[in-house]
């Protein structure tokens, strides 16, 4: 049997763990943090202006036009939804598989999920022509007869899937937070701090009976989240797969999207964890290189799955004998947007293969760079799917191009501002590592220690 790596380094006691993790919430941050927060906030405000202009004047501010009716907003929506998958996946699937190494990263991954879904969720609303009426996508009782929604539309499925996913992820994340919030409450000196965290912790006391129900519900949520997380990206992929457009109308899309989502999600987690390890040195004991390496292995695996999907799409297009289908795929790789295809393939398939080298997958700088490439590649994957399929479809008379504007770039980068702004606030307000989950695995992998 291979010797197990310790999950927490530095021979910590229970109190050390509590102190280490709570310190971030209980002390004032330094200048670096404020600088990061302000720049994220600046980007966020810029984002609000961009989206405000689009709402004020119309979707035509962005580069989309006939026939490319979806562009940046939908691409970035799928991108963020994909990012949002790793959190629940790490939490739920790894939990079900009893992967103890998940404890260190689960909380931040879940938070990332929630914030990514929030960031993502704005896009489908804002991309509509009349966003102030986007609530019409909900089947609520109304005075129009009542008039319901079209349950055959993948966009309605999206509404259900994304809102369910957002709700369940948020609940999952929050339920995980409850005992830790109680810890912070009990450590609080300030009465208001005590009250606020007390209210958030629901008055948690940690009796054995509470833990009994708590563990059960946590496992149930994990069990429910697992099909949910798979369904969400499947349904997002249905947005494309259910359409009859060549390049979209493919049965491989659900697994391909899920693999891509896991891939991009882990990419983002690695990015965030690399930053967190640097910014908060004490976390190096909790988020160990061993953890990072594990994630990199998953990135490499899913990268190959995604690569397989790319290849199989081409094969199926060729095998189908459908000339328009064949054209779309050749056009993808060699048409006017061919560059985006090759960016995608390079970033998603070739670059992650560097993780075959142990040196690379266990060194922070290269893995950080690769994770950024993964993020870029996955954005372009959605770009390739959305834009290259739309711009040349059945009737050549309606073919056209897509030319981004300031409002496209603004929406992409601005959404990062929103995400990082929320994430940075979270880092200082809530425990970024699950205190209650780390403690039981404190001694895992330590020589001579009993398994707890």
């Amino acid at each position, binding site marked *: 049997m291979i010797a197990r790596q310790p999950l927490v380094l530095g021979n910590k006691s229970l109190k050390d763990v509590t102190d280490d993790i709570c310190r971030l919430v209980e002390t004032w941050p330094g200048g670096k943090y404020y600088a990061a927060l302000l720049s994220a906030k600046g980007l966020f405000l810029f984002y609000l202006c961009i989206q405000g202009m689009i709402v004020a004047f119309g979707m035509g501010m962005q580069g989309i036009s006939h026939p490319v009716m979806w562009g940046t907003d939908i691409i970035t929506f799928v991108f963020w939804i994909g990012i949002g998958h790793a959190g629940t996946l790490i939490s739920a699937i790894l939990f079900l598989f009893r992967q103890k190494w998940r404890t260190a990263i689960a909380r931040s991954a879940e938070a990332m999920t929630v914030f990514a879904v929030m960031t993502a969720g704005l896009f489908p609303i804002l991309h509509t022509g009349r966003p102030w009426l986007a609530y019409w996508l909900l089947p609520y009782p109304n005075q*129009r007869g*009542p008039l319901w929604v079209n349950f055959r539309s993948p966009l309605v499925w999206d509404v259900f899937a994304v809102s369910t996913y957002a709700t369940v992820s948020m609940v999952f994340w929050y339920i995980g937070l409850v005992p830790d919030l109680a810890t912070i409450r009990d450590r609080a000196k300030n009465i208001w701090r005590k009250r606020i965290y007390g209210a958030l912790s629901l008055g948690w006391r940690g009796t054995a009976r509470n833990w009994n129900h708590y563990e059960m519900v946590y496992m149930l949520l994990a069990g429910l989240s697992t099909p949910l997380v798979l369904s969400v990206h499947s349904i997002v992929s249905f947005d494309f797969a259910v359409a009859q457009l060549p390049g979209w109308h493919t049965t491989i899309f659900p697994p391909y999207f899920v693999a891509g989502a896991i891939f991009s999600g882990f990419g983002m987690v690695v990015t965030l964890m690399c930053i967190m390890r640097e910014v908060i040195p004490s976390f190096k004991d909790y988020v160990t290189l061993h953890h990072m390496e594990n994630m990199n292995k998953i990135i490499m695996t899913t990268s190959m799955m995604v690569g397989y999907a790319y290849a199989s799409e081409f094969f199926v297009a060729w095998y189908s004998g459908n000339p328009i289908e064949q054209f779309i795929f050749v056009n993808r790789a060699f048409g006017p947007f061919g560059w985006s295809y090759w960016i995608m393939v390079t970033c998603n398939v070739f670059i992650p293969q560097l993780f075959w080298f142990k040196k690379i997958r266990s060194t922070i700088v290269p893995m950080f760079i690769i994770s950024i490439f993964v993020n870029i590649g996955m954005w372009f994957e959605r770009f390739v799917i959305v834009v290259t399929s739309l711009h040349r479809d059945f009737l050549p008379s309606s073919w056209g191009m897509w030319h981004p504007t300031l409002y496209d770039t603004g929406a992409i980068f601005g959404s990062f501002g929103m995400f990082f702004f929320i994430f940075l606030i979270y880092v200082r307000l809530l425990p970024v590592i699950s205190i209650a989950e780390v403690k039981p695995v404190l001694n895992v992998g330590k020589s001579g220690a009993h398994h707890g």
Partner: protein
Amino acid sequence: MAAKKIIGAVLGLGITFGFCVFVYAITNNKVVIGYNQNYEPTQPIPYSHALHAGKLGLNCKYCHTTAEISRHASVPPLNVCMNCHLTVRQVNGKDSPYIAQLVDAYMNDKPVQWQKVNLLPDHVKFNHAPHIKAGKQCQECHGPVETMDRVKQYQSFSMGYCVNCHRRPENNAPTNCSTCHY
């Protein structure tokens, strides 16, 4: 503890029940939010339907001539008013200032700007003619106009109002969207 539970249960059931009633009322047009039901603007000339249609018993279509053939029932042109008011100038034996106002407008070619009471948005294409052809009484939608001194919007004219009537099997009316929206 028991009392608390009972209160909680009653409260919970009450809220659920209330919600269901609300949903029912909204979707079946029992309760209307918005839509200006009962809107009753003042008119430049206080023409009384209660007097003309009620007391004098004029048929609606005597004035609203186009209702049977056109989309609009149309407010009558002043020459229709003048059919009678060329001679009728008095109310209760006294010269009426309002009739004088009407005659003045007619003589000077100055159209009267009536306040619109029943308003459908631009994207709704209602057509009076087929409804009258189907035997609908004006009062079904416009209410007892013959009793109104000042006309008000009697029904909500929400989409639900239209649809719930079209739906009734005895009306044999279409409910596809392009019936009204195009």
